């Protein structure tokens, strides 16, 4: 092969993400990286290390903990934070509820997904963060497809999708007034498949729940929910054991599994390439209404 000055597609994406992270750190004073322990935030942490090497991450990581996590995710989170020598801040939805800032949903399947916004915003205020890195991708969801790399939030942390700043070339305007902050999304142009291919190429470690395993699940309106203390069986429902894995990792109360034998990265990449439904189809939180994501984002959600 003759040598040409051409970066592979993944390397182009990587270079873009690194550029954006550096730009945010240069333009803001108190950045924070939102970290859930899911694959996208693992890629984010990796890109952040690349962006600032040989220095350590110039910002802490923040986990907004709903208390409804998969134990494997939390275990992995602590392992990774320790391994890369990052500083981790954990703020819990339970604290927000106890402080009377948020209220638990009623019903058989209370989700704390929306409540995360309250906890996130309190944490941003507590630490005076002026920019929060998120791992959201535009290919995930139609409201996210409209998101800028540098996304402005007003003093109430609201997103105004009808009136976003034009974002030209790669000139990012992070100027803001007191009390306002930004969300920065370095993975905007990545697709689910890109993430998996990058994980394989960079040999990144992942929580075990992404790989095929046996688990007791209940099928609730097509969403396969894992057995846990957060799920109450409805009339006529029962647990059954299946070979499953998770394509996306959120709360146990709303993240659905997919039946899959894919137990290594190669199989997962083949599965994702051939998938006929989006990864968020298995998320009960997005199935609530057509504009569920847009509505949550306007309020200040990730």
């Amino acid at each position: 092969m003759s040598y040409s000055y051409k970066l592979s597609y993944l390397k182009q994406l990587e270079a873009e993400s690194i550029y954006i992270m550096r730009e945010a750190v240069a333009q803001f004073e108190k950045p924070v990286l939102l970290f859930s322990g899911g694959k996208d935030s693992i890629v984010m942490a990796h890109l952040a290390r690349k962006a600032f090497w040989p220095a350590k991450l110039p910002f802490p990581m923040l986990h907004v903990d709903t208390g409804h996590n998969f134990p494997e995710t939390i275990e992995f989170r602590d392992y990774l934070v320790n391994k890369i020598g990052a500083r981790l801040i954990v703020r819990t939805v339970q604290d927000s509820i106890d402080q009377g800032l948020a209220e638990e949903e009623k019903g058989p399947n209370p989700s704390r997904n929306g409540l995360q916004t309250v906890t996130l915003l309190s944490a941003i205020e507590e630490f005076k963060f002026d920019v929060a890195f998120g791992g959201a991708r535009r290919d995930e969801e139609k409201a996210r497809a409209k998101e800028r790399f540098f996304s402005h939030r007003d003093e109430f942390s609201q997103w105004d999708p009808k009136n976003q700043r034009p974002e030209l070339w790669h000139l990012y305007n992070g100027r803001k007034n007191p009390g306002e902050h930004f969300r920065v999304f370095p993975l905007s142009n990545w697709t689910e498949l890109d993430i998996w291919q990058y994980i394989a190429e960079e040999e990144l470690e992942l929580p075990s729940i992404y790989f095929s395993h046996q688990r007791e699940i209940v099928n609730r309106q097509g969403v396969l929910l894992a057995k846990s203390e957060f799920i109450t069986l409805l009339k006529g429902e029962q647990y059954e054991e299946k070979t499953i894995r998770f394509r996306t990792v959120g709360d146990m109360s709303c993240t659905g599994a997919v039946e899959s034998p894919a137990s290594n990265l190669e199989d997962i990449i083949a599965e994702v390439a051939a998938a006929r439904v989006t990864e968020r189809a298995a998320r009960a939180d997005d199935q609530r209404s057509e504009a569920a994501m847009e509505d949550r984002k306007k309020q200040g959600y990730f």
Partner: protein
Amino acid sequence: MEIKEQKREADLLRFITCGSVDDGKSTLIGRLLYDTKTIFEDQLQNIERTSQQRGEEYVNLALLTDGLRAEREQGITIDVAYRYFATPTRKFIMADTPGHIQYTRNMVTGASTANLAIVLVDARKGVIEQTCRHTFIASLLKIDHIILCVNKMDLVGFSEEVFNKIKADFETFISRLDIADVSYIPVSALQGDNIVNRSESMPWYEGPTLLYTLENVHLGSDLNLVDARFPVQYVSRPQTTEYHDFRGYAGRVEGGVFKPGDEVMVLPSGFTSKISAIETFDGPVAEAFPPMSVTITLNDEIDISRGDMIVKPNNQPQTSQDIELMICWMHEKPLVKGKKYIIRHTTREAKCLVKDIRYKMNINTLHKIEDDLNIGLNDIARIVIRSTVPLFFDDYRRNAATGSLILIDEFTNETLAAGIIL
């Protein structure tokens, strides 16, 4: 891993779709996604359900890209929606940009990072003001490839005569613009004619389909490999035991090729030094070229900060405080001659004064308007600014990264204009 290898070889095309409102842009994108089997079942079910609820006759593919509630309610596109798809030959990032004149600024946003523009016209209406406006902006932003899609051919009886008339009108308009490559395709996005599959209703059209054109358009390198330009983004001083004396300049190569040992000059100081290493997390590299993000270390300790630029002594950018620009104005508040604005250019931020407004463009006739210099939302004008500090720049046509800037309101911090350095 076969898939991985395949993807790595595939190249990338970024394109936009533009045209007037109701020309069927969102439907065209929906059709591209649908016929390339990029639409997922749950997405399709969602829009089928919504279309049914709204009492629409067929599945409304526009609902795929109109992601905001207000967009679906009004049936228009307000902001750019980005979509991703791939065929075995290419990966595509497409930006569906708004057709409403009110949202032209969002079209400019999408166009600033595109290599190709699909301009849609409604076969019943032909070339109209928005067609001209979008095509002009595309040429101003140096988009080298334009595909004129004459849509809704089904509504004009798939008439070759109608198509040829529109083609001739468009040719007349663009003869005065600088566009390298234009193709013309008659389509029906609604029925899928000539999008992915060849039309059976238009045997007179012998050219390629839209997808074939997208897959095969020749992408010469958009990247300038001649003029070495490295705007310093961030100074890396780890101050750890291991890297106690490390001082690196992080940034992205915006032009040319840098190698260890190269003699370089730092602007604005003019000091020279040699590159000692080009560092990355994965180890030092033998050369850095666009769009790599790297960290450069130099042999000498020189005072360098964000906004400075590392170049080669024998190939320097222009350095000046007085700059001639074409601007696309993007705010309801008009441009004010004599007012100060904030400029962001590469990694540099400065203030500037608008010294002169030379003329405003009449988009339809491409004439210069010199007797009305009120520059408001969506106007395109030529202006002169004077910046508080020198900028290091190239002509936009030579290097879009060092030839572009934005103007920002110093009080509200909103982005007001896109500037193209002449």
